[in-house]
């Protein structure tokens, strides 16, 4: 019979207009095309021209419509009318909100600015928020890096002036072997997927090192199901094998690292363990020809890598020899670490061999002449095409800093950083420690802080300690307990403020950080601290101001709410002063702009902060006559100058838009960005594309673009000298001395060469009682707690089971649909279990931040997120189990203070299913925005 089919319009009009802005469904910052129809958002797709995502868009980004129209959006400023934690509020005007805030904050600033603790969460405007806090004068400012991944940032900067995170990127187009450690959907999500795809296309080998085989590890050509917390040991064993076989890039080590530098070996010296310098402060090496020490960069000097030299009566040994002696120890032999890591010695050998084979037998050469900073010309660029990436799984352990350093050391001895096929930095990186500020914490009532809060300590003199040795900061960052806590320690703020240790504060001011729920260790404890009252019936933490766009769990605990906008309603800048969106080949930054105007009485937090700043008369936010300097964030983005000619946005500076990186403010700058698709991009010259830390063309270009004010070449630090300075103090040298109970920890932890120790939690508990490691991973389709208010995303992950290995499943005789009690040294939860075989046998895990408090996020109180969903956070404590010495030991990395939430150890037992509700159950909070509609059918109107 005949085939008939209807006429179809295959060319319907898609939209009235496309507005190009930047996504904020996670921290990836992809460019998006927002299709507008009848003034509403119809469709969001990736921007093909954008440097980050080149047109693709993930599930979260595509679900942006549902986030933008979320029923959980706050509607107006609110003040608390019930008890803290209840969620009862009264809507007020912005004028009243600012009055309330200013009346509280003004007097604090005049008398004791440290009584304000201002901490921001997943904030992408830290250059503004830190500037504001500095002008306010409180030392208590940080973002959330301390519980996020400071270990990665700090280890990277101290070692090589750049880091994993999004500070750099594997050379996806050239690398031939790629190892990825401990990465789920962390930084940098879409670029990693795009990169892996490129590797697959070229047949490059991908090795996934992760206890859990999901996501990227699922598609890796080889999965190494390592035991959590042992990556450092695994990497050092590979280094052992490579050193033993002489498979190291000596030329690279000689030219670009401190491997040949001479270390003072005289234990009696006050400079024991420090590097030998000449009178000009230049590092010295032993010259092969003369046998004498000479400045390392003196023309014709060829350094010795081994042996011992006596100079002016002191013995010195090159870093390389110390390194070799350390890692050739049998302690690092694959056979010695295999059981501990859960990886066979043969596999460790083989992977090391594969790395060496690719690095040294498959090197690549690019015909691109370049000149190094000493003026030496090179005809080609040689690459060792092995590359690495690592994130959370490395970071969130109490040995994370040194483990990350170990991975960098492996990269460096293979000569694979900043070379073709290796790991490449994105401007403004590379940027050595010397290019970063030191921490500042000196307060003056009524005046600004003496400098930026966060930075990189070079030695004990940079710690934030009072003369009496007590911490200056409420989070105790930059103290002997964690001397290199470069991102602050947001996770300690509430517990320290509650304990009044080191002092009591008045106001806790937070932005976009769900501290009462999934962004804290010990969620229940934090809720109790936030609601605890003193003997007078006053809250122990007297005043809490919070800004969020949505009705999160944290909203319920605030006294004053400043409602933020959605990401489509706001101005933002993804700034080179913060964490920009650059590529390895180009410098880039971008903006958000209101593609839709808010239909509620809300303001972008940054605008509100600027307005509050002017009301308080903060320097930098008011003119000489006291009038507001900036109307809002857009005004600030365009007109603020951090240094003359350098502002939040680098593109289209000067009145005519010609300025790149430097130039006077351009009133048309935002429009130029909008015309350009929401971003700005400027290519690095070809001769400057690799060897950036040592490449003259790059250094000159970076100065032109305002990244540095003068060329700043540097060497990679295999040996991190600042660490030794803290060790020297712990050995009793110098005026600044740590408390006695921390000396041993400092000497062990602040080893200037990468080292491994067992995660602290397992050192303090009975591992036979708590035999399992418990982890969380971020699902690709959800971002922290935000996804659950999203009608589309919550259908994908509305509940989270605990995945247990086949071994654990069989041992405990679990069946489909079973529940289990999971117990740590700190707490006990009841959760549904699911079997997973592609899992390290001693590991259990779940998706993070799916569990919700009843009443939050405009969800039904019986939402599966609130009944079946759960958090592992209840099992984790910010402190280690008591050691019997009467001291508080924090559950964190002893170098950076990074929260060690992956150190968690648990035991598991079968539980009755009963009503099928996970425990603990937290009573509901009232919803200030009601509950979302029953059914939706978005898009019918178009």
């Amino acid at each position, binding site marked *: 019979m005949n085939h008939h089919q209807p006429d179809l319009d295959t060319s319907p009009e898609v939209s009235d207009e496309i507005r190009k802005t930047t996504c904020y469904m996670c921290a990836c910052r992809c460019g998006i095309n927002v299709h507008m129809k009848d003034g509403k958002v119809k469709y969001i797709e990736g921007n093909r021209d954008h440097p980050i995502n080149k047109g693709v868009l993930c599930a979260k980004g595509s679900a942006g419509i549902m986030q933008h129209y979320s029923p959980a959006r706050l509607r107006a400023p609110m003040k608390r009318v019930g008890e803290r934690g209840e969620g009862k509020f009264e809507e007020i005007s912005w004028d009243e909100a600012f009055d309330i805030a200013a009346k509280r904050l003004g007097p604090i600033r005049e008398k004791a600015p440290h009584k304000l603790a201002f901490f921001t969460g997943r904030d992408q405007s830290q250059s503004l928020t830190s500037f504001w806090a500095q002008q306010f004068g409180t030392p208590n400012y940080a973002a959330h890096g301390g519980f996020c991944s400071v270990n990665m940032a700090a280890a990277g900067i101290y070692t090589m002036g750049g880091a994993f995170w999004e500070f750099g990127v594997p050379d996806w187009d050239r690398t031939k072997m790629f190892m990825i450690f401990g990465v789920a959907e962390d930084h940098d999500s879409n670029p990693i997927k795009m990169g892996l795809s490129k590797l697959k296309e070229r047949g490059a080998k991908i090795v996934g090192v992760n206890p859990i085989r999901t996501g990227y590890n699922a598609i890796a050509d080889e999965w190494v199901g390592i035991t959590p917390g042992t990556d450092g040991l695994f990497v050092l064993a590979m280094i052992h094998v490579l050193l033993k076989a002489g498979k190291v890039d000596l030329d690279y080590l000689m030219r670009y690292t401190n491997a040949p530098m001479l270390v003072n070996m005289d234990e009696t010296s006050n400079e024991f363990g420090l590097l030998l310098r000449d009178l000009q402060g230049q590092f010295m090496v032993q010259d092969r020809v003369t046998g004498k020490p000479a400045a390392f960069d003196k023309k014709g000097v060829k350094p010795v890598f081994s042996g011992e030299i006596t100079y002016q009566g002191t013995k010195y040994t090159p870093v390389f020899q110390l390194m070799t002696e350390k890692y050739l120890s049998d302690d690092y032999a694959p056979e010695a670490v295999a059981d501990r890591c859960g990886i066979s010695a043969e596999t460790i050998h083989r992977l090391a061999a594969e790395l060496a084979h690719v690095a040294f037998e498959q090197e690549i050469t690019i015909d691109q002449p370049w000149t190094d900073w000493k003026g030496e010309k090179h005809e080609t660029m040689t690459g060792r095409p092995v590359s690495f990436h690592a994130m959370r799984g490395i970071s969130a352990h109490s040995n994370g800093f040194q483990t990350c350093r170990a991975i960098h050391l492996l990269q460096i001895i293979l000569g694979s950083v900043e070379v073709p096929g290796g790991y490449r930095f994105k401007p403004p990186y590379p940027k050595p420690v010397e290019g970063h500020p030191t921490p500042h914490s000196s307060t003056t009532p009524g005046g600004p802080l003496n400098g930026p809060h966060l930075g990189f300590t070079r030695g004990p003199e940079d710690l934030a300690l009072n003369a009496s040795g007590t911490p200056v900061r409420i989070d105790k960052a930059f103290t002997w307990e964690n001397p290199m806590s470069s991102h602050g320690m947001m996770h300690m703020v509430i517990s320290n403020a509650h304990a009044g240790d080191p002092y009591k504060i008045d106001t806790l001011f937070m932005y976009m950080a769900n501290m009462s729920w999934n962004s804290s260790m010990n969620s229940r404890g934090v809720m109790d601290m936030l609601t605890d009252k003193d003997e007078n019936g006053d809250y122990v933490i007297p005043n809490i101001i919070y800004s969020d766009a949505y009705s999160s769990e944290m909203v319920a605990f605030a006294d004053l709410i400043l409602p933020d906008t959605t990401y489509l309603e706001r101005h933002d800048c993804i700034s080179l002063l913060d964490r920009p969106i650059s590529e390895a080949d180009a410098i880039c930054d971008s903006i958000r702009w209101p593609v839709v105007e808010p239909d509620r009485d809300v303001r972008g937090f940054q605008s509100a902060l600027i307005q509050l700043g002017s009301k308080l008369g903060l320097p930098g936010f008011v003119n000489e006559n006291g009038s507001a300097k900036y109307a809002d964030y857009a005004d600030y983005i365009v007109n603020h100058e951090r240094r003359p000619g350098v502002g939040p946005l680098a593109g289209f500076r000067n009145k005519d838009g010609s300025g790149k990186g430097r130039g006077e403010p351009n009133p048309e700058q935002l429009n130029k960005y909008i015309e350009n698709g929401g971003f700005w991009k400027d290519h690095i010259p070809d001769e400057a594309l690799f060897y950036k830390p040592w490449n003259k063309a790059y250094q000159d270009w970076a100065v032109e673009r305002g990244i540095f004010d003068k060329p700043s070449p540097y060497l990679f630090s295999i040996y991190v000298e600042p660490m030794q300075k803290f060790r020297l103090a712990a050995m009793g040298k110098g005026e600044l001395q740590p408390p006695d109970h921390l000396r041993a920890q400092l000497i062990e932890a602040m080893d200037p060469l990468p080292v491994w120790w067992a995660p602290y939690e397992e050192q303090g508990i009975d591992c036979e009682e708590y035999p399992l490691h418990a982890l969380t991973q971020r699902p690709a389709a959800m971002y922290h707690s935000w996804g659950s208010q999203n009608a589309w995303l919550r*259908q*994908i992950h*509305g*509940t989270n089971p605990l995945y247990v290995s086949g071994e654990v499943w069989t041992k405990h005789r679990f069946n489909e649909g079973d529940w289990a009690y999971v117990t740590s040294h700190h707490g006990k939860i009841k959760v549904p279990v699911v079997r997973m075989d*592609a899992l390290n046998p001693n590991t259990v895990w779940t998706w993070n931040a799916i569990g919700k408090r009843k009443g939050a996020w405009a969800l039904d109180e019986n939402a*599966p997120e609130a009944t079946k969903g759960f958090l592992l956070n209840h099992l984790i404590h910010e402190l280690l189990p008591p050691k019997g010495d009467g001291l508080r030991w924090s559950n964190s990395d002893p170098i950076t203070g990074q929260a060690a939430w992956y150190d968690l150890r648990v035991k598991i037992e079968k539980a009755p299913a009963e009503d099928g509700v996970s425990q603990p159950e937290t009573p509901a909070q009232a919803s200030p925005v009601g509950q979302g509609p029953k059914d939706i059918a978005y898009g019918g109107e178009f």
Partner: protein
Amino acid sequence: MHPAASVIIFTSLSGLGFGLLFFLGLDRPVVSGWVAFTFFLIAYALAVGGLLASTFHLGNPQRAMKAFSQWRTSWLSREGVVSVATLLVMGLYAALLIFADIRIAPLGWLGSALCIATVYCTSMIYGQLKTVPRWNMSTTPALFILYSLAGGALLSAQLPFALFAIVILTAIQILSWARGDMSFSQAGHTIETATGLGALGKVRLLEAPHSGENYLTREMVHVIGRKHGQKLRVIATLCLGIIPVAMLLFFPVNHFSVVLIIILHVIGLFVSRWLFFAEAEHVVGLYYDKR
């Protein structure tokens, strides 16, 4: 498959109705006037009621007329066309019989043939589906027709025929359960063929696409416990076959016992029809690792 009330009522009642019409078309029992009216009324109530019930599961019943258009390819469309034709033919036959007392026997025979054709079409809506191996068997049309004939015979008090039909029906029903239990594995569908991943090893579902239910899981991934199913099969066999046969053979036949037999048989019919849906395993369940 989800045992929706609408389809169970539809197939059961319309089967009974067309079964009764089948006998009326053959002039069994021989009736006329008000008695004929009553019989036809019951038959039409069952057949039309069943057909109407089927529209309850439609998303857009107002467009139901469109379903008559695709009789060339679609069994569902054919069922619609043939059932309407049957009702029209039998309507004419009945009207003449009741109101004019004229019996046109060939018209009745045609109507009876159409009744069987209708039930066959109904059965093929399910029997055609390769996706549900338990339905995709020759016993499916046989069962539907036998249920229709047995029920029709009871309703029309054709007891000797009813006895014969019920015995055959019971045997085929048991056979169909037995064969049905093996049908899925015999069809060769596994999670490995569904995913194509068999070459890599044994496949199991780790994570469903969405953490909650969806249309597919509600409609096609319904699973009932084996023990539960066995109990219901025994109940169905007793009600639809064994007890009625025993009563017909060993008990005195009177109005009361016939009504009791009909009630029991219809209960058996509903239970077995519920099982027909509930035990049917759709191959899409493989993707959810529920087979």
